[in-house]
């Protein structure tokens, strides 16, 4: 690890000792989980590089962008429109919250029965280990689930630059009006931050950039419909995770390159797993970096994951923003339209999500669905019961999992998942 990075981290105010621990854990699990996989596409080398430099080169790039006058906006939720940030000369990064950190400190501020994602977001702040968080000029929270809503009140005392976006909970005309008003408020806030006024031209370019990134990931996801699956669920999840961090243009090019390779694989009937391997669709809570626990267990239990109905996955990336608008107003309306379709469980009712799960199960030829719920996540755990019921009525086997980031229950999960795979095989 270069000394230049160390001084960069120190200048950002990271706790170097704690940060070393985090990087150590991250590096090890990446090696054991990712590099140990067989039959990986060569193009994944790009993601190996991204992950090895996730706190290094990418941070340096962001700092260079900052030095050149760009601003960094950090977000915790897929409802924060990247198009608006980009159009105002800001870079949007996802703030990862996929590992436990500084748990004792966190539990001084949050009740124990808070989901692992929220606790992790706090842990990275309190432990001073996340360079994305520290480099962000603006941190966007959003009023989604109760846990996050209330947690942002507390987070507001820990960071100087928290901006909270309100979100509707109902897909009604009033709900749409709330989203529209909030996106205009966000636009004004980002413009004030960067001093750049969004123009029709900059917004159009931003929409095209984000759409290109989405199209590349759509292409990747569509290739997973093949049997044998050309790419593991772990690798596809990683691409979905890096979606939130990487430079958009480079990400797009790299994913497209992997897709070219996967198309060849499919033509040669080659796969990451043998043909007829039981196929699993994961549905539920987001899996943020470096939360690779579930796919690791599933794919070491004789099954392959072929899709993620998740915000780090198809719920987050599906649907493009229409590029047909000519004025800022028209394009803003297109953005509202696109994001208003995200079927997060904080909405009520939320029948679209169930329909999407069923559609994905059919499209990806899944043999079964694993519903992934983080412990204490009320919205998704609540929905998991009707989801299971509806799937079983259609004879789609479903396994509901409730877990967190610790490895304590790994053995028990493995038994359940192996039994589920046996069940699918019949």
């Amino acid at each position: 690890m270069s000394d230049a990075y160390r001084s960069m981290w120190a200048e950002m105010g990271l706790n170097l000792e704690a940060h070393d621990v985090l990087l150590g854990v991250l590096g090890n699990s990446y090696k054991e989980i990712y590099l140990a996989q067989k039959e990986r596409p060569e193009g994944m080398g790009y993601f190996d590089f991204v992950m090895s430099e996730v706190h290094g080169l990418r941070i340096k790039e962001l700092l260079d962008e900052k030095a050149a006058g760009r601003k960094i906006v950090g977000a915790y939720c897929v409802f924060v429109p990247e198009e608006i940030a980009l159009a105002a000369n800001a870079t949007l990064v996802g703030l990862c919250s996929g590992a436990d950190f500084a748990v004792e400190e966190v539990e001084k501020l949050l009740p124990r029965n808070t989901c692992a994602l929220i606790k992790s977001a706090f842990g990275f702040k309190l432990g001073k280990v996340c360079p994305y968080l520290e480099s962000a000029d603006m941190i966007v929270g959003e009023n989604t689930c109760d846990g996050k809503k209330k947690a942002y009140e507390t987070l507001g005392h820990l960071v100087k630059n928290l901006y909270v976006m309100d979100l509707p909970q109902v897909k009604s005309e009033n709900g749409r009006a709330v989203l529209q008003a909030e996106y205009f408020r966000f636009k004004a806030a980002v413009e004030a931050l960067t001093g750049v006024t969004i123009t029709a031209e900059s917004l159009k370019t931003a929409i095209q950039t984000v759409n290109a990134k989405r199209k590349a990931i759509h292409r990747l996801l569509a290739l997973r419909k093949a049997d044998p699956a050309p790419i593991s669920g772990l690798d596809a999840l990683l691409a979905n995770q890096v979606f939130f961090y990487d430079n958009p243009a480079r990400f797009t090019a790299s994913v497209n390159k992997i897709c070219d390779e996967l198309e060849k694989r499919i033509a040669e009937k080659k796969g990451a797993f043998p043909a007829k391997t039981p196929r699993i669709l994961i549905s539920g809570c987001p899996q943020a970096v470096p939360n690779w626990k579930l796919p690791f267990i599933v794919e070491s239990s004789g099954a392959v994951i072929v899709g993620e109905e998740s915000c780090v996955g198809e719920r987050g990336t599906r649907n493009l923003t229409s590029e047909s608008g000519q004025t800022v107003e028209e394009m803003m309306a297109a953005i509202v339209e696109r994001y208003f379709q995200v079927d997060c469980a904080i909405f009520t009712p939320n029948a679209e999500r169930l329909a999407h799960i069923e559609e994905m199960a059919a499209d990806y030829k899944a043999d079964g669905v694993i519903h992934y719920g983080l412990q204490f996540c009320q919205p998704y755990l609540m929905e998991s019961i009707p989801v299971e019921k509806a799937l079983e009525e259609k004879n789609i086997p479903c396994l509901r999992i409730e877990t967190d980031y610790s490895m304590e229950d790994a053995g028990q999960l493995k038994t359940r998942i192996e039994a589920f795979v046996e069940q699918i095989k019949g």
Partner: protein
Amino acid sequence: MGMRRFAGIDIGSRTIELVVVDGAGQVVQSLKADTGFDPLAEARRLLDGVAYDRIMATGYGRNLFEIAFEAPTVTEIKAHALGARAFFPQALSVLDIGGQDSKVIALFDTGKVKKFEMNDRCAAGTGKFLEIMARTLGYDIAAFGDDTLLAEQETTISSMCTVFAESEVTSLIAKGQSRRSIALGVHASVMRRVAAMIQRVAPEGDIVFTGGVANNGCLRALLSQKLGRGVLCPAQAQFAGALGAALLARETV
């Protein structure tokens, strides 16, 4: 050609069971030991002198065994389903209460697993809970169920958590409540927990009850009463998992 023999070993958290079947799937040997601190050493001891052509492992220690003995494995869900079917070929619902977990399995008519649920995060509704309560009440676990059948009334135990239930029982004893009525309360508490799981997962037909706790007549009676369904206990209830694994070893080529 000598007779072919197939073994199944169920390495649970408390006990290890070994079953050997012949080429026709008939049980020719069954053995049992406490798991102790070193499951592999116990397994080796149990296997000493036992002849078999193939072996398959199940239970929470199956992966340890897989590595040490290069043997294939099957989860306890599928193993119990197969074992229960061998005992009762029509079974559609299986309940297994082991030392530290409980599970309910629903089967298709064909015997394949349709759905299952496991409780392994909490001792309530497991053999461990009954054992601790028996000890607190001064019972020998083997006699716990039979004696409780004689209870005339039930003292309700409200705590679900083993630790709280234990102190609740202690204070009920101190208050002079009859031992049998408290014991009935303890059984009813386990029954309610398990019955809810059965109704959710496997709402059809008689229930085949496997695992060591199946020998508890009081629990069987309470369950049958509550659910209005037959609760069947195979003679070798504790060997269901090992039997299922042995039968699978026989099928596997």
